[in-house]
């Protein structure tokens, strides 16, 4: 493609693709697509499982190895974070929070080794946000009872009910859209810049612009953005879950 094509807007030019469908199954008339996202998620799960097996193998109480120190540091940091933001009686949520964080950050970082980010598919953050949604409402029902939970919807006055319902439903939507939007905007901007730079270098004839600049952008969007969004996602999860419990005020 020449630079003049780029300036005119080339017909075969820039496009953003969704995740590719590897194969599809028909289960009772419902088509289930096995997409790139699912396959890469399996790879991540496999990698994390192997890493954890390696980290936790051969644990001792005396003469501990560096590997065990690293594993203990990870667990300790996670539990400290959960305790400091949710309170002592929420320690049991730490594994869920840790899994969410690991999956989210690795799902964003796989784009650095050339795979498609798991979080650049809206289904992945939506699924996590829905699990969080179930946790929020489960906690609410468990602490206030089912009638108390329903009463929460008509809380100040009965007229407020539609607004309360909308605000509850918008929680998972906004959480997942935020994560997805941040990652996918990084992806789009990086590929747009790459497209423009390759058009310019083709116009000039020497490919030198495409070497360094997209890597810097990718470092910012994938590394910093991915980490930030994973962190924000778990912080919001913890805040919402501990808010669903009336005891949160006394614990904090």
């Amino acid at each position, binding site marked *: 493609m020449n630079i003049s094509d780029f300036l005119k807007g080339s017909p075969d030019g820039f*496009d*953003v693709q969704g995740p590719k469908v590897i194969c599809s199954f028909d289960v009772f008339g419902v088509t289930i697509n096995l997409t790139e996202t699912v396959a890469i998620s399996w790879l991540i799960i496999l990698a994390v499982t192997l890493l954890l097996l390696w980290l936790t193998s051969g644990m001792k109480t005396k003469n501990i190895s560096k590997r065990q120190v690293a594993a203990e540091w990870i667990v300790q940091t996670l539990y400290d974070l959960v305790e400091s*933001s949710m309170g002592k009686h929420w320690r049991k949520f730490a594994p869920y929070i840790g899994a969410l964080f690991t999956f989210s950050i690795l799902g964003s970082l796989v784009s650095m080794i050339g795979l498609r980010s798991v979080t650049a598919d809206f289904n992945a953050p939506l699924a996590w946000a829905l699990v969080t949604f179930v946790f929020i409402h489960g906690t609410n029902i468990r602490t206030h009872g089912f009638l108390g939970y329903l009463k929460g919807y008509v809380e100040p006055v009965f007229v407020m009910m539609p607004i309360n319902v909308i605000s509850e439903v918008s929680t998972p939507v*906004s959480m997942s*859209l*935020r994560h997805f*939007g*941040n990652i*996918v*905007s990084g992806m*789009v901007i990086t590929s747009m810049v790459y497209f423009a730079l390759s058009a310019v270098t083709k116009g000039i004839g020497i490919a030198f612009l495409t070497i360094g600049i997209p890597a810097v952008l990718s470092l910012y969007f994938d590394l910093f953005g991915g980490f*930030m*969004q994973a*962190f*924000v996602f778990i*912080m*919001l999860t913890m*805040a919402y879950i501990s808010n669903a419990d009336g005891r949160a005020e006394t614990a904090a």
Partner: protein
Amino acid sequence: MENTEMIARAIVLGASAIGAGTAMIAGVGPGIGEGYAVGKACESIGRQPESSGAVTRTMFIGCAVAESTGIYGLFVALMLLFLNPFINKL
């Protein structure tokens, strides 16, 4: 007849591009809001350096929540650009 259709497509595509650009005006609000929040966080860290951890954490959550309107704008813009819902309605 074919010419008319092409003109119609061109109008829809051009209007979608303008719409995508207009949707990104939504980025102004979160920018101002987040800048204000970060400024306040810096002030309070300057006043109480020992509470910097809690302030930073709260600020990040606040920024993320404030950002969602901007993300919605971005979402609309991306949809108009790459997933145009109007072009098939011709």
